[in-house]
């Protein structure tokens, strides 16, 4: 009797160990849906990021048979958590691609459905970021781009002319120096992210980080270092030691200009309304250009930004695929773009109506240049779609901190990064 008990215990132990080892592999069989369909969609910080609910509600209104349920993930750990769920076979039907650099990881792992047949409106930005081997594995619904925020009051006090869309980086540096010298505030604040130098350099020099040749960054870094030395902007070391935030520096009027993504528009409006930022008049201008060829409102300024998109989980139940594709098409459409614009989100496609909806929000700037800067431009991807991008961006992050902290000269840091590219990226 006791021996039987022992044997049973052993079997139970083995079984539990085995189960523990394979947990997550088995997915319960899903029966084919007929009639009403429920799709799950991943999102983050739902309380402060209303875009997912807006899209879900609007789609349900158009298609009463389809309900889109939101699945919330922690914002900071979003990609890790979604990856874990997908690997365990319990991922959402529709995956929001928060960062483009994860698209290749998901696609190579066979997690994404080919959605090349989803029709996109003309002029939608960022679609190429989801294309691998001529197939689309996602559609963009949102695309922020980098622009120049400026504080009109500080410009007036310093007696400096507002940006007019014709600026090159030299004009920007001159204006920053003039404002700083007048003593009203720092001319500019450049946040510590590598994007604030490298993103512009890649977009405006017509190349990208996959090239492995990084000499084109040199002029952009030299300019930033010169501005730091001249006191036209707070230096990188002070910014990191004091953990400065760009919202605090621009919102509390400590800096007159801020190169930043268009997502900051909604934040600034909200913070001014809540009293978390000073109340002052501000505007948006196109980001300064490398040379005069792309400046002016009759031209198309070059800037950068990564899209946010939606993909379909390859493990989705077949009966839901059509509904999911319809949702993707809707999210990328002009109709959804208008709804997103109304809540301060920059959609991947815009026409006049969408632009008007975006700037109709109380507290938003109303001048034409702001509308031009928000809606016009050639937006290069900061993170080109490749399985090498994440490694390259880490190498370039080290280069960025080495240069801006003043611990390595620009030329040397670039050479080091190029050597690391050869050594660490060209290995496969």
């Amino acid at each position, binding site marked *: 009797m006791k021996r039987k*008990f022992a044997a049973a215990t052993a079997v139970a132990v083995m079984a539990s160990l085995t189960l523990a080892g394979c947990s997550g592999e088995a997915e319960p069989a899903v029966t084919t849906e007929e009639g009403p369909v429920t799709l799950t969609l991943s999102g983050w910080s739902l309380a402060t990021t209303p875009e997912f609910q807006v899209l879900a509600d609007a789609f349900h209104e158009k298609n009463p048979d389809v309900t889109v349920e939101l699945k919330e993930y922690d914002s900071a750990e979003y990609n890790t958590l979604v990856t874990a769920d997908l690997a365990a076979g319990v991922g959402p039907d529709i995956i929001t691609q928060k960062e483009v650099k994860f698209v290749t990881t998901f696609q190579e*792992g*066979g*997690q994404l459905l080919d959605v090349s047949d989803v029709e996109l409106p003309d002029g939608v930005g960022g679609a190429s970021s989801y294309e691998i081997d001529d197939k689309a594995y996602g559609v963009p619904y949102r695309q922020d781009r980098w622009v120049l925020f400026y504080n009109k009051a500080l410009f007036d006090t310093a007696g400096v002319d507002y940006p007019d869309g014709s600026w090159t980086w030299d004009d920007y540096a001159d204006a920053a120096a003039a404002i700083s010298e007048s003593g009203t505030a720092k001319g500019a604040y450049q946040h510590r992210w590598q994007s604030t130098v490298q993103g512009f350099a890649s977009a405006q020099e017509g190349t990208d980080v996959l090239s492995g040749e990084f000499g084109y960054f040199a002029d952009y870094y030299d300019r930033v270092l010169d501005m730091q030395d001249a006191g036209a902007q707070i230096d990188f*070391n002070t910014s990191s*030691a004091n953990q400065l935030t760009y919202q605090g520096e621009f919102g509390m009027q400590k800096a007159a200009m801020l190169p930043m993504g268009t997502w900051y528009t909604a934040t600034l409006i909200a913070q001014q309304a809540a009293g978390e930022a000073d109340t002052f008049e501000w505007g948006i201008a196109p980001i300064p250009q490398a040379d005069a060829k792309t400046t002016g409102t009759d031209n198309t300024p070059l800037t950068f930004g990564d899209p946010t998109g939606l993909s379909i989980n390859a493990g989705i139940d077949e009966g839901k695929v059509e509904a999911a594709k319809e949702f993707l098409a809707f999210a990328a459409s002009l109709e959804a773009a208008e709804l997103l614009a109304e809540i301060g989100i920059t959609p991947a496609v815009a026409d006049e109506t969408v632009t008007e909806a975006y700037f109709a929000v109380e507290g938003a700037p109303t001048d034409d240049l702001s509308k031009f800067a928000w809606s016009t431009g050639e937006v290069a991807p900061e993170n080109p779609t490749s399985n090498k991008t994440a*490694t390259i961006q880490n190498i370039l992050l080290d280069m960025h901190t080495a240069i801006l*902290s*003043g*611990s390595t000269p620009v030329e040397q840091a670039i050479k080091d990064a190029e050597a690391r590219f050869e050594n660490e990226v060209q290995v496969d």
Partner: protein
Amino acid sequence: MTTAAATKAGRPEPSQRRRRSKLTLRNTLLGWSFILPNFLGFATLTLVPVVTLFYMSMTNWNVFGTATWVGFANFERLIGDGSFRISFWNTIYYAALHIPLTIVASLGLALLLNNKLRGVAFFRTAAFLPYITSIVAIAVVWNLLFSPDYGPINQILRAVGMANPPGWLTSSDWAMPAVVIVSTWRDMGYYMILFLAGLQTVPRELYEAARVDGAGAWQRFRNVTIPCLRPTMFFVTVMLTINSFKIFDLILVMTDGGPGQSTSVISQFIYRKGFEENQFGYASSAAVVLFFLCIGVTIFQFIWNKRRNV
């Protein structure tokens, strides 16, 4: 009685054998029932992942799908990887500074606070506080203190006549010493407690005898305290070594491995390759190297300690 009977008969009776094997089985089952709950947790949360890690280190795997077996290719790649080499030497550099500094600081604190003084409990608590404070809070405050232009540390250094104080976290030469200062400050309270416990075990009579023999304070420390603290010192050194090789959180929050790669350590290399670049196979091989580094140094310490005991 039973033994006598068994001896007499040459072999135990079948009924006795059955009883004895039943007893053995009962004892075994009883033993298992004590170990099992803990072992199940250990097996699921530690053993299985560790064994998997060794397997993963020989594969190419991006978390999805099947891992491709590549044998020792990942390890060969590690040898040729300049970033890994930098992280490896940075880890050694960190440990070489951090271990002796922490031992000296925590032992010094323990000796100071081993006296029966009024308010000594307060000072002991104060010395232990950094250890239970959030790493992020520590990192943010020390970053402010180390600020090259406005930080109080450099202001004091300037006030005492140093014209060019170090840039601390912004200089590739000074960033690692700065991190070591913070981690020593953080850890010394914990190791102080261990040393305090060790000091309580030193027999008072030894000090009295030494004093009678005319030994001064230094001689008493050298010839009584230190030898009596041997077991504590050994435990502290082993723990400190393992923890130093695994340093991760403080560096991640304070410098993120920068400026450049000046404070990048092996744990951070593993984190970047695995969770940021999705090269889980390659990251696993670096984790295996870290594992063997820790175990190698620990075994060496055990052997060295055993020899000294002999």
